[in-house]
């Protein structure tokens, strides 16, 4: 059987098939990445491989070697890892290893953070139209998918959230810009932080702050609202 040899020879002959040093570098890189369960950074590989070797070319060659195999070499934000081929999922899948199920709310928050990052909590709540319940962000951070990124340079300096490399690894993405449908959403203007002009819609309230909400209310509405007690919150 020939599957190991097929794809790589093309690349290697072009560039450095005759160079035993390049071949050795490939073997070393392969072993280094293979040994680790975690993605290995290109910086680390550069340090470990013989000096002067084109690491990018080494990795491209290796990736090519594995395209048809049962294991793939994948790149995640400048880090490399071996992963089983996705099409073999059926053969490997086992229910015991099923990752923890996320609540709908947590999943929604995760998607918003992924597509809108860096995003503040207020923006997440604006998009969802509800307050984020305690525990939702916590769960995502504990899973290692979401992290504090920094602070927005606006008054109040709100903290922003973003996704992690583990997030990309988990969902099989090389980079954030590989998120499914990202470009279309951006093109449709659905990812801009800015609202259309004159945007004005009630934002989620903390329970008792009925009166705080503002202009569009008519006197009649206010009277009606006063008659009704605020009920419980709807979050998860």
């Amino acid at each position, binding site marked *: 059987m020939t599957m190991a040899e097929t794809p790589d020879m093309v690349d290697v002959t072009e560039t450095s098939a005759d160079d035993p040093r390049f071949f050795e570098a490939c073997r070393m890189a392969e072993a280094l*990445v293979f*040994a680790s369960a975690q993605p290995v950074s290109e910086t680390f590989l550069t340090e470990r491989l013989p000096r002067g070797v084109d690491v990018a070319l080494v990795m491209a060659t290796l990736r090519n070697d594995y395209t048809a195999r049962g294991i793939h070499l994948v790149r995640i934000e400048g880090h490399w890892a071996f992963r089983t081929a996705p099409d073999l999922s059926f053969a490997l899948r086992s229910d015991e290893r099923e990752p923890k199920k996320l609540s709908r709310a947590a999943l929604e928050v995760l998607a918003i953070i992924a597509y809108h990052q860096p995003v503040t909590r207020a923006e997440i709540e604006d998009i969802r*139209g509800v307050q984020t319940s305690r525990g939702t962000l916590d769960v995502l951070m504990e899973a290692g998918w979401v*992290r504090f990124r920094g602070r927005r340079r606006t008054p109040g300096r709100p903290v922003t959230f973003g996704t992690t490399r583990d997030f990309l690894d988990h969902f099989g993405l090389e980079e954030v810009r590989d998120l499914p449908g990202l470009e279309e*959403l951006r093109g449709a203007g659905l990812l801009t932080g800015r609202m*259309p002009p*004159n*945007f004005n*819609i*009630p934002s989620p309230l903390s329970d008792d702050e009925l009166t705080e909400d503002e202009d569009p209310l008519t006197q009649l509405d206010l009277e009606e609202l006063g008659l009704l007690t605020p009920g419980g919150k709807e979050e998860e």
Partner: protein
Amino acid sequence: MAEGQKPASAPLEKLWDADAERGVSEPALLIDVAGFEGPLDLLLHLARTQKVDLSRISVLALAEQYLTFVEQARAIRIELAADYLVMAAWLAYLKSRLLIPQQPKDGEPTGEEMAQSLAFRLKRLEAMRNAAEKLVNRDRLGRDVFPRGAPELIPVERRSAFEASLYDLLTAYAALRQRQAVTNVVIARRKVWSLVEARTLLSRMVGEISDWVSLDIYLARYAADPQERRTMIASAFAASLEMARERKIEIRQDGAFTPIFMRPGEKAADLSEGSTPL
């Protein structure tokens, strides 16, 4: 809703499916908002029942649907969360702006602009829902795709010999501060006035006064915290009974729940040397 009918819980979806066929006036509609994550979620659900592309929904019809829903909820006295009602008010306003076109005034959005904004928000929420679904159905590590099962732990790549994430750090800090805060609360709560303390206080009072003084007013000088007042009054009253028995003070109250007055008793002199009793 028909009288005497017992409201049972039914998903809202039923409500609107039924409406599409039977008209809104149909009685006995049962409402359940438990499945919805706030008014925007509900609105998105209602918009979907229009069965058109979100960019072509009728915001006016949507506003009416929502308002009808809130009306019905009120009719059967369902307590709606405040944000549902705020949304209702906003939609009522939007509806009026859409029905009675006004000259755009400075800074005030037109009805169309408001409608567009709402449609935008619904579209954005739906887009994120779809994105979440796509994400969760990808080939996921640990479910569809697997890492090396027996890593050899050789290429450990760490600049630092120690491992900790920001999450670890913040969790530790939050837990610590919380732990300490709880301890503090316990200490703070220990503010119960003992009989001894109350007696000392009363003794001091007796030294300062010569005639009837309202206990409340006197104590108010010491109890800045209203929560403390209660225990102070209770202890002071108990202590005052004892002191009255010893004839160190006299107590007077004109009626139930009226202020309690005190003045030095015959033996008040025993209490405080430095002051002049009576």
